């Protein structure tokens, strides 16, 4: 792996990244070349991972979405693919509109140049004096998730003391690539299902999926016709041969 010295641009989200790729590669936002976009997208994701850039799970989900659209185009009836592509294009157009509007709005920001004063301290009786029917109390509770109330109650009684900030775990594709290869070094082949065994985390599953695709692309592994087994292809000389086969297949 070559070390990269430049600093990767950071994006607000997968849509932001896609828009940047679209403008950089002069793609038509109203009729995107999915293959090209996917290729560039994965390159960015890989570079980000190589630089240990923390990417939100949504970036991997978008990769999976793009791959899915691309795969759907291989089916005999690509209507679904067309539909999915249209949805993605719609989302991109909407988001690009939002970015333009946000930029425009930001120009008129005067929030840090106008000052207001805090209210004068005046001693006054502020006691509430309206009267309501008690039933509106139960009604106001309807928006509250009982589940979160119970969770909080349990948490309190268990005296779990730290206000933990739940953070979504992000699993890198590279770590899964290493994991799969390690598995294959020993036996030369592995059952596809075993790769996902015990992997319940969504991010980890997506990463595993992407890792298999990544390894297939680089010709390190092949997949059996029934998609059940993967084989290790250690020899680099077969890589080119395989690549050309893959390209003609697509």
């Amino acid at each position: 792996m070559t070390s990269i010295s430049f600093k990767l641009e950071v994006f607000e989200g997968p849509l932001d990244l896609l828009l940047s790729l679209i403008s950089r590669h002069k793609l038509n936002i109203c009729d995107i070349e999915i293959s090209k976009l996917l290729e560039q997208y994965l390159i960015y994701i890989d570079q980000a991972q190589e630089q240990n850039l923390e990417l939100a799970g949504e970036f991997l989900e978008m990769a999976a979405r793009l791959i899915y659209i691309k795969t759907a185009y291989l089916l005999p009836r690509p209507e679904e693919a067309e539909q999915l592509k249209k949805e993605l294009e719609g989302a991109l157009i909407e988001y690009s509109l939002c970015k333009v509007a946000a930029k425009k709005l930001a120009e008129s920001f005067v929030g840090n140049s106008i000052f207001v004063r805090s209210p004068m301290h005046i001693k006054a009786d502020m006691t509430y004096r309206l009267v309501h029917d008690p039933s509106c109390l139960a009604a106001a509770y309807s928006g509250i998730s009982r589940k979160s109330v119970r969770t909080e109650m349990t948490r309190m009684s268990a005296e779990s003391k730290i206000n933990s900030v739940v953070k979504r775990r992000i699993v890198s594709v590279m770590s899964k690539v290493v994991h799969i290869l390690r598995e294959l070094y020993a036996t030369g082949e592995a059952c596809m299902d075993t790769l996902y065994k015990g992997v319940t985390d969504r991010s980890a599953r997506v990463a595993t999926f992407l890792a298999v695709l990544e390894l297939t692309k680089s010709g390190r592994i092949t997949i059996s016709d029934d998609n059940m087994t993967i084989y290790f292809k250690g020899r680099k000389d077969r890589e080119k041969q395989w690549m050309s086969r893959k390209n003609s297949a697509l």
Partner: protein
Amino acid sequence: MDVKEKLGAIEAVLFASGEPVELFRLSEACQVDAGALPSMIRLINERYDDCGSGICIKKLDSSYQMCTREEFAPQIRAALETKRSAPLSNAAMEVLTIIAYNQPVSKGFVENVRGIDSSSVINNLLEKGLVEEAGRLDVPGKPLIYRTTAVFLRSFGLGSVSELPPLPGQTADETNIEES
């Protein structure tokens, strides 16, 4: 800056700070000679007097403070009173019920249940006298806990918190469904 601008700057600084501002600080910030400042303040006050303004600048020791004129105290009080009789917002109502049905609870409890920062809502309920502090929770950080008050009971026609209306869907069956 000409004199007019300097007067404007003095006003703006005194308005924004709220508290008394030391003469030297005011003169430095507005680039006005400290010796000239008192006469400039006098100019502003004369202008206020001429038009019967509701505000004026007072000298306290070596500081200046912008305040309201005493004769308008009744109107200021009346404005506060109108605020007092405003009905509770949806958010206030929701926080109030969370406290009522689970009391005593901490702010953290309310916020975790609602999934949103609720400090200002709780402060508002405290100001209205609908909830009050009920000590601190014995966990790290010792958060304050809150309970409802007599004002709360009166506002909702309740004799005690045990008379709170039952929550819809509180039967055993429904809780099971929810969990599944």
